[in-house]
């Protein structure tokens, strides 16, 4: 039972980190109809900025953390303004390829800086020792994982309020449904796109810290973890924010359970699955869910009148 709880907690925490990335992907997809392949790169760029400031430059951690996250948001804004705005109205396929180019650009610069040795992101709670943890009924709750869970809950609640109450939030929803009608209301659609990328960038910054912070480190391979938000949004349905959250939790829990119960599964199946199977499991889940529901769990079925 303890193992089960431990696996559940770690899975949920991991899932909430993925959800931060996934929500960004869904926001960009809803607003601009493009799946941004550059998004996982933004996540690691955020982590890189925090590390560069906090460790290399010796800026106090919290300051570096805030600057890093805001800067990631601004990078999102700049990418949108310089590369994607001129592509409005172009075929979706070309824009998607463009985002792959941006991904390569960002990651090449970052990998060059990371080099061969892993980078650390600094210690948010020096007084707690080395990223402490607390024990509850035999379950180890790492502060970092707890923080990830709470951050995700807070960010999702803030976004929900934003979309329901604020003028720009409602305008963002309207733009995602019907761009032309939004234009006719006097909504500056270009500014909305910029805002979407800014929010997505900030979420990516948070996710970047939780993916590579603490005992984890920032390496050239870190972006693979961020990429796991992709099966999450595919499971949830590309155009649904609740779907992105549920999909992320499914991916996180799968990874958690498989990591803890892999030996039992191997004994049951009688075949060794190999180490690191927990990293492949999310993609298998995606495969099976897509077989049953091609539009994802919460996705809107695309109906186009001929």
């Amino acid at each position, binding site marked *: 039972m303890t193992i089960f709880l431990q696996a559940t907690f770690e899975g949920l925490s991991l899932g909430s980190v993925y959800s931060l990335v996934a929500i960004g992907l869904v926001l960009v997809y809803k607003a601009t109809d493009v799946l941004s392949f550059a998004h996982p790169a933004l996540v690691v760029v955020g982590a890189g900025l925090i590390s560069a400031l906090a460790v290399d430059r010796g800026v106090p951690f919290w300051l570096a953390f805030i600057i890093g996250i805001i800067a990631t948001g601004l990078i999102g804004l700049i990418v949108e303004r310089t590369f994607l705005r001129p592509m409005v*109205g172009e075929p979706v396929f070309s824009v998607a390829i463009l985002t792959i180019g941006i991904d390569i650009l960002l990651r090449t610069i970052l990998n060059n800086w990371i080099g061969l040795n892993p980078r650390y992101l600094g210690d948010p709670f020096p007084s707690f020792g080395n990223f402490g943890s607390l024990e509850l009924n035999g379950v180890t709750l790492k502060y970092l994982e707890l923080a990830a869970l709470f951050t995700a809950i807070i960010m999702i609640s803030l976004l929900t309020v934003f979309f329901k109450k604020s*003028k720009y939030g*409602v*305008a963002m*929803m*309207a733009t995602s*449904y*019907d*761009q*032309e*009608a*939004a*234009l*006719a*209301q*006097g*909504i*500056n659609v270009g500014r909305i796109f910029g805002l979407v990328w800014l929010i997505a960038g900030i979420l990516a910054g948070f996710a970047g810290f939780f993916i590579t912070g603490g005992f984890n480190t920032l390496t050239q391979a870190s972006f693979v973890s961020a990429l796991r938000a992709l099966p999450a949004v595919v499971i949830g349905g590309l155009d649904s924010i609740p779907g992105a959250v549920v999909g992320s939790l499914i991916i996180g829990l799968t990874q958690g359970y498989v990591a803890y119960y892999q030996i039992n599964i191997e004994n049951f199946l009688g075949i060794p699955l190999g180490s690191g199977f927990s990293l492949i499991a999310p993609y298998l889940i995606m495969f099976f869910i897509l077989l049953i529901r091609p539009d994802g769990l919460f996705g809107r079925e695309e109906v186009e009148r001929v």
Partner: protein
Amino acid sequence: MLAVKNLEVVYQDVILVLRGISFEIPKGEIVSLLGSNGSGKTTALRAITGLLDTQNGDITKGQITVEDQDITNAEPSKIVNLGIAQVLEGRRIFSELTVNENLRLGGFTNDGSVPENTERVFELFPILKKRAKNISGYLSGGEQQMLAIGRALMSDPKYLLLDEPSLGLAPKLVEQISELIVEINSQGVTVLLVEQNANMALKISSHGYIMETGNVVMDNPSEKLMKDKDVQEFYLGLNTEGTDRKSFKDVKHYKRKKRWLS
């Protein structure tokens, strides 16, 4: 006065849709713009409100002015700010959002006065008040049209451009909508009415323009247009010569272009 002079619009760099049309909408009046499918009525509206970009269209010649201020090729948000609101063809409400949210979006450019303007819209369309919290996609067609008009009124426009408000509505509702247009006009909003339902449009407007393949071929006070034999036959569906069938060979095609320059 909203004036369009010698407007020429090209889609995709090759398709000439408007061939130098001119019309004007004097303050406080209802002006109607009539014509059959594909004559360029909607394109003219798009040109005024700056929505050509999304359709890959460009204004190649001509000028659009409102109170002598040039708004040719201006940003849609700027045009809304200057007091020109458009009700798009086919209503185009945000069907996933509630009635209240739709109205709020209409008032995007002056968010401060949303409460008063909402009250004003509810006074004009009491049914919307009852449906305020409903998802607007579940409203009936007539209610959706009212919502679309109400949404456009939220920005406190001086000029309201209506694109086929009678589209797909029952005759009873068309009558109701036309009464509402007169009511809105009497509150001081100038209206440009683009219609295929010529009968309804000419009844309530003071002046009418008739378009054919990208040209304005006739413009006259509405009463005069309603008495015109050709208009009666082709737009009002009245056959003055009893039951005789008429060959399309005999149909008069209008050549006249109205131009200020050239």
